[in-house]
């Protein structure tokens, strides 16, 4: 589905150049749920921006379903950090904006938007503005907006990081449901080890090395099984991810 081949990404910081990716390769199969985990500034978000087409790799190429990514793509939905909602639009207007900028006629998107608002439990607040919503509601607006685009690839940049524990668990469940139901390919960035193991069918542990290194790749076949969070397997996976992150931390101090 997604083929990242020999990608470099360099950005200019003042006069110096920072090499975030050097000859980076990654293959993602259709229907996978990839989680990227790693310390702040390790280039996780950059990878999402590259996949979304908002940023272009300095060298190399990215292909999705055989087509090179040149700019944003119709079937990719991207939920940015802090949800990327527009404070001047109501919930309903935010949810329909993706379809509006794609020049969909109102008559045809209205039912879809309404369906998504109901599905995400936003019916009562659909005429409210984002500032009047709780963090969890805002995240659900962002999800609703992404899903109205009927994407085949959903990118999420720390979607749940600002939420309280219970809301967070509830939304993790919702994300899992959406992923299983719609057979979406998802790529999610997180700081939380627990979240990574709960949501990722494959977990990539990234470390900031300038360029970024993938220090671990964990397949997680049991993801989505009910009660997974309470199993021994789940505990082992989280410990393993933690050890990879910690070992990276040691490397850091040794350098």
């Amino acid at each position, binding site marked *: 589905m997604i083929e990242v081949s020999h990608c470099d990404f360099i950005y200019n910081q003042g006069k110096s150049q920072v090499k975030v990716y050097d000859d980076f390769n990654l293959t993602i199969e259709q229907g996978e749920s990839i989680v990227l985990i790693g310390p702040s500034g390790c280039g996780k978000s950059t990878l999402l*921006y590259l996949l*979304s087409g*908002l940023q272009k790799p300095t060298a190399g190429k990215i292909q999705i379903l055989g087509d090179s990514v040149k700019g*944003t793509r*119709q079937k*990719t*939905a*991207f939920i*940015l*950090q*802090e949800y*990327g*909602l*527009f*404070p*001047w*639009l109501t919930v309903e207007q935010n949810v329909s*904006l*993706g379809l509006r*900028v*794609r020049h969909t006629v109102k008559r045809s998107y209205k039912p879809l938007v309404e369906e998504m608002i109901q599905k995400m439990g936003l019916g009562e607040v659909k005429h409210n*503005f984002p*500032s*009047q*919503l*709780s963090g969890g509601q805002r995240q659900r607006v962002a999800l609703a*907006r992404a899903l109205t*685009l009927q994407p085949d690839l959903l990118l999420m940049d720390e979607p749940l990081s600002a939420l309280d524990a219970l809301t967070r668990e509830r939304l993790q469940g919702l994300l899992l449901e959406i992923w299983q139901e719609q057979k979406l390919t998802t790529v999610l960035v997180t700081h939380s080890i627990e979240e990574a193991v709960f949501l990722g069918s494959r977990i990539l542990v990234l470390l900031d090395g300038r360029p970024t290194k993938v220090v671990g790749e964990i397949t997680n076949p049991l993801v989505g099984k009910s009660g997974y969070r309470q199993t021994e397997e789940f505990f082992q996976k989280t410990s393993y991810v933690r050890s990879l992150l910690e070992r990276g931390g040691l490397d850091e101090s040794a350098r």
Partner: protein
Amino acid sequence: MNLQGKVFQGKSWGYLGAIVFLLALWQYAAWSLQTPLLPTPQAAIAATIRLLEADLGKHFWVSTYRVVLSTLTAFLIGLPLGIIMGYEDRIDRFLAPLVYITYPIPKIVFLPLILLFLGLGDGSKIFLITFIVFFQILVTTRDAVRKVQSETISSLRSLGGNRFQVYRYVLLPASLPDVFTSLRLSMGTAIAVLFFAESFATTEGLGYFIMDSWSRAAPDEMFAGIIMMALLGVGLFIVVDFFDNIFCRWQHLNGYKEGK
């Protein structure tokens, strides 16, 4: 009564109180100074009513026309140009030095020159007010657009938005609250400039009316002009607030409260 109604009523009482307070202050000053130069509020209001039946209304509308047309023109040029300068670095790099150097120059000193080129009619007055207000709106709008976070723009682009749509759906709505603030401030400036421009070589407008009454030593008539000038200012302020409430409704909300 719903909450909005109550808030509105509360506000109305506040305004009424302010008016009563100002009138009382005026009354007190008139009584204690005992000079023919400062008439009592009653005398001024009586003169206003009397003169409105004559030609004060005409002067009021001429002034309103001048100030509204020029502010509108300044707005319609300053807003798009400010948004473009705030977003397009290449254009800003070219225009910013020009704005930076010309903005602090008091444009009002060009009045003689403007009178020379545009004549004594409405044109020169409208041009001068537009010229001054334009800069205020331009600079505020540009700075407001610069404050827009790149993530907000990325968010729209990720939905498939093109360059035009970034303007339409992000930059314009994001800058509007600041634009309305600058419009409010500009109203004060616009009316001050209007008064100045109308006190020269003209026979129409409130500025002329006030200066003419003054030179005829008719203080109650002069105050009638001042009252109309004040009403013009307050009226325009209310109009700006009205549009602000419509277009920036999201700015005037109570935020999310836990457990609502």
